[in-house]
């Protein structure tokens, strides 16, 4: 299971990196999204892959070390929210970019073609 997750995260990173290197600005933003998903997933599994109980203690639990780690879930929640905000901003940016320049191809905007 660990291996599958690791490969999955790696694949997401690879996809993100590939998309980042494309010329189209839309793919660029998709690449950023993939990267942030890969990172979120990585963060999620830092608590360890386990089948333990959620971290809720009503006093009846005999062994607290059997509870799973709640912190990565708090972290990933923060990371997802920040990721959403940034994704929204990038979408607006590429929309303005397209409206202003009439193209989604980054190469058409290189410095020597002002």
């Amino acid at each position: 299971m660990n291996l599958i997750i690791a490969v999955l995260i790696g694949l997401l990173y690879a996809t993100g990196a590939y998309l980042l290197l494309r010329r189209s600005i839309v793919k660029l933003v998709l690449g950023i999204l993939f990267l942030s998903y890969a990172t979120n997933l990585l963060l999620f599994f830092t608590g360890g892959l386990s089948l333990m109980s959620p971290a809720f203690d009503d006093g009846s639990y005999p062994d607290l070390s059997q509870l799973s780690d709640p912190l990565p879930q708090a972290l990933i929640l923060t990371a997802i929210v920040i990721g959403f905000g940034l994704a929204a901003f990038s979408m607006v940016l590429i929309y303005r970019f397209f409206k202003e320049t009439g193209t989604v191809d980054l190469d058409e905007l290189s410095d020597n073609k002002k």
Partner: protein
Amino acid sequence: MMILFLPILIPLLTIILLLIVRKKLAYQHILSVLSVVAQLIVALSIFNKLGESTILVAQAGGWPAPFGISFLADYTATILLIAVALLALPIVIYSIGFIDKVRQQGGLFVLYQGLILGVNGAFLTADIFNLYVWFEVMLISSFVLITLGAAKQQLRGSVKYLVMNLLGSSLFVAAIGLTYSQLGTLNMADIADKIMKQGSTPLLNSAIMLFFIAFGIKAAVFPFFFWLPASYPTPPIAITAFFGATLTKVGVYVMLRFYSLFANMDEAFWQPIIFIVAGLTMLFGVLMAASSYDIRKILSFHIISQIGYMLMGIGLFSLIGLAGALFFIVHNMFSKTAAFMAAGLIKRFKGSYDLNMLGGLYKSKPILAFLFLIPALSLAGIPPTSGFFGKLFLVMGGFQSGEWLITIVAIVVSILTLFSMIKIWNEAVWKPAEEKAVEPSNQKLNPLIIAASFAMTVFTLFLGLTVFWTFDSFTEAAAQLLNPQLYIDAVLNNNRPALN
């Protein structure tokens, strides 16, 4: 220590107030200035409370140290807090006069406060995930600032800026995840404590390397620097000045902090890497500046080159090296801002940033020439300006540690910097006015702009002239960085919870 929260709460409160008076620019101006002054007072009073071995610590929400978020102010953080507050004041005033009403109404001052909020938070926090949050606060403000007004060239520059910084952020979070999975803690003092006691594992080292890559992207070091010259020159120059003074420096500050806490016990591995990166950063920055003819581009490339000096100080990790690096950071914040402001004035007066279009400034506006001369000399490192002392301490540190190669590179780059500054001076100030020169814009120069630029120039001069009085504080800061145990004890021991 409630006072530690004030540098964060004041900008936050100001943002709310600014949004309430969104329609009234005059109120926004007054509020922004008041807020920055208040932050300066708070930063100075934090500095006053610091002593030889007293480090101020505050636990957010009252959670005990390794579990909650800790905030910490030592000399390093406080000196930088003061520096940011000091230069934010002229920048706000300069922006009031320099930046057009449309952009001001678009929330310029709100975003300034957002930027300061993120920067102050990053200086004070002692928790890596919280640090990430401050970085994002800073980043999202800077994203909007850099695209504010949405001119075509701004959009183009901002795409590179956005992509590189988001890439950096996701590497940062990945590194946080890896660290957490290894050590089970996010508190910087706790991490350092555990690394010291248990030693480093390969996975942990790769996490730390990821941290350095992420911060390297933010600080624009070799080979991650190319987004900076593409994006920094595009927004109005007051914004560029603020960026140059804060964003990259926060990257360097965090590297300094992480190196002191997490990497210095493994010096044999890290030091050569830092030196190689530092040397290449210096060289590439200055060489690209030498081939540029746009004042904003030249100054932006010099930001990169000077990041190299700060890295060199981190790599030396000796008392004088670190003190020199810290002094150099503050010097660079001031001189660079002053230089950008003077460049803005030149543009206002002569209508261009292009050196081929400029000339005759000395004859027509000697005051402007002077305003540019001081920061230029300071950047090049001519005594008695601050740049000279910063470089002097770094070079002394380099020779003391016997690091000849990097020191020689630093000296050569310094000469090349002088060449760049002379180029601007010759082309813009000395040579007779170009006939094809653009007609200067007719609008009268706002006295606020000149006053702000003048104030920044005076700060730059002052920093150099008072070095013998202020340098004690910088050495004190370096001493604290050299002894990470102080940091660990300050955060953990005072309130280590009773473990059951």
